């Protein structure tokens, strides 16, 4: 008799624990304002990433198509997996001296691990992390980017 009573009480206790769990799920069914789901990609216009979000390496240019890169190659040295290639050239300054300048700042997005070491190492702050995270492309070659815009030159007064 005692065993039977114990058996029945176990069954009821078991059902009770299931109901306790159902109470929690029920609470969230009827309070949908507790939901945290974001409707991506419908919310693209309002979706704002955090300032420090590491999406991709970019080189900001000002309105005169000028950037801050001197072509020193420190970012290339600091990159752990060879995502950055610097091709520099020699330019003549107004005084007639030879000076190193950036020809192409090649960035392989497909190899980048977004570790932020290049940005931390850059002495002039020429490269920063961009907020864009939608990197999917149809062709792998499109992941290789040239960061300095065509025809751009270094801004006045930037020294190594």
């Amino acid at each position, binding site marked *: 008799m005692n065993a039977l009573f114990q058996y029945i009480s176990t069954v009821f206790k078991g059902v009770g*624990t*299931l109901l306790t*769990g159902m109470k*929690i799920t029920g609470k969230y069914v009827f309070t949908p304002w507790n939901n945290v789901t974001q409707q991506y990609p419908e919310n693209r216009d309002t979706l704002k990433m*955090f300032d*420090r*979000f590491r999406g991709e390496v970019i080189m900001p240019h000002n309105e005169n198509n000028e950037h801050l890169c001197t072509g020193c190659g420190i970012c290339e040295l600091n990159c*752990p997996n060879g995502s950055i290639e610097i091709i520099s050239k020699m330019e003549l300054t107004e005084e007639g001296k030879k000076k190193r300048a950036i020809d192409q700042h090649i960035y392989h997005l497909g190899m980048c691990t977004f*570790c*932020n070491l290049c940005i931390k190492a850059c002495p002039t702050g020429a490269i920063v992390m961009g907020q864009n995270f939608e990197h999917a492309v149809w062709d792998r070659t499109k992941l290789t980017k040239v960061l300095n815009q065509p025809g751009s030159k270094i801004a006045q007064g930037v020294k190594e």
Partner: protein
Amino acid sequence: MSETKEIIISSDKIHTDQYLVNMGPQHPSTHGVLRLLVRLEGEIVHHIQPHVGYIHSGIEKMCESLSYPQVIHLTDRMDYLSAHMNNEAVCLCVENALQVEVPDRVKYVRTIMDELTRLASHQLWWCVMGMDLGALTTFFYGLRDREHILDIFEETCGARMTLNYSVPGGVMFDIHPNFQKRVKAFITEFRKKLPEYDQLLTGNVIFQERTNDIGYLSLEDAIAWGVTGPSGRGSGFSCDVRKHNPYSAYPLVQFEEKLDTRGDSFARYRLRIEEMHESLHIIEQLIDNIPEGDYAVKMKGVVKLPEGEFYQRVESARGEFGVYIVSDGKKNPYRVKFRSPGFSNLFALNKMAAGHKIADLVAIMSTLDLVIPDIDR
């Protein structure tokens, strides 16, 4: 007809052969590419032989060609759920070798980040544990709460999982102005949510039946197989590196090392839940007292370690994580060895699961909280 009769006659001294089954490498409950060669007799597991190396990525070898600051970003990719502890281990090892004293602010920030990472890892473990036992609800609820921590990481470090936040001599950025506010908001929020975890899963009758007295690991076996972390403490093995070999700001905080001597699946489960409470407690002690000061000491452009061997261990979310660096005085390490907790914990699986049903093997494996890149690295 006569054949049937023969079988019936011989069934009173039934003899079945043992057979081998490959569980994985593409099995959903192995959480990655892990292959378990299971010797079964009917449904009973007799022996388990884990086969690792399916996603071996050669991280230790890659480290030999990288400089010390570059090594750190690779450790994110090993145990991606305790990324910050791994980063910190390498940083502490380099700092000890160079005898650099980091500012107090760095110690506090690193410890808070450690505990936030541990919380995020245990939350993910909890939801996956429920999912392995068929409770899909836990999966969504755990991930919902984890999202708050990942937002905190994203705001301060710039990444959600592969943080790369520690650098030799400090941290990469100063904490974000919103950091303290967000962490405090998270703690109040999560303190309310944590009892729901118990109501949803811990007390559940199906969960209780499937974890109590299943997967017993004795204290002797836990020590012999080097099972650390909550899995080892579930067998009563006091192995918390934060207590026994404190680093960063752990000497300054009050917390308890939770132990359980039962050694079954439920003990390991309960300890992780209790560790979440302890983590919240640790963060609460530190978050208001972050000292002012620099967030990093100025290091040389090229970090070179003196010749010799250096070892540093930290408590990651899965157990004891160790970094062993052999340096020959150059800017690259001569040899790096990572002692990953998942590798040792996995090989004690045979001791726990032998004699149980194959369905229990899934439950036991979840209580070990395996991360496959941590095992294979």
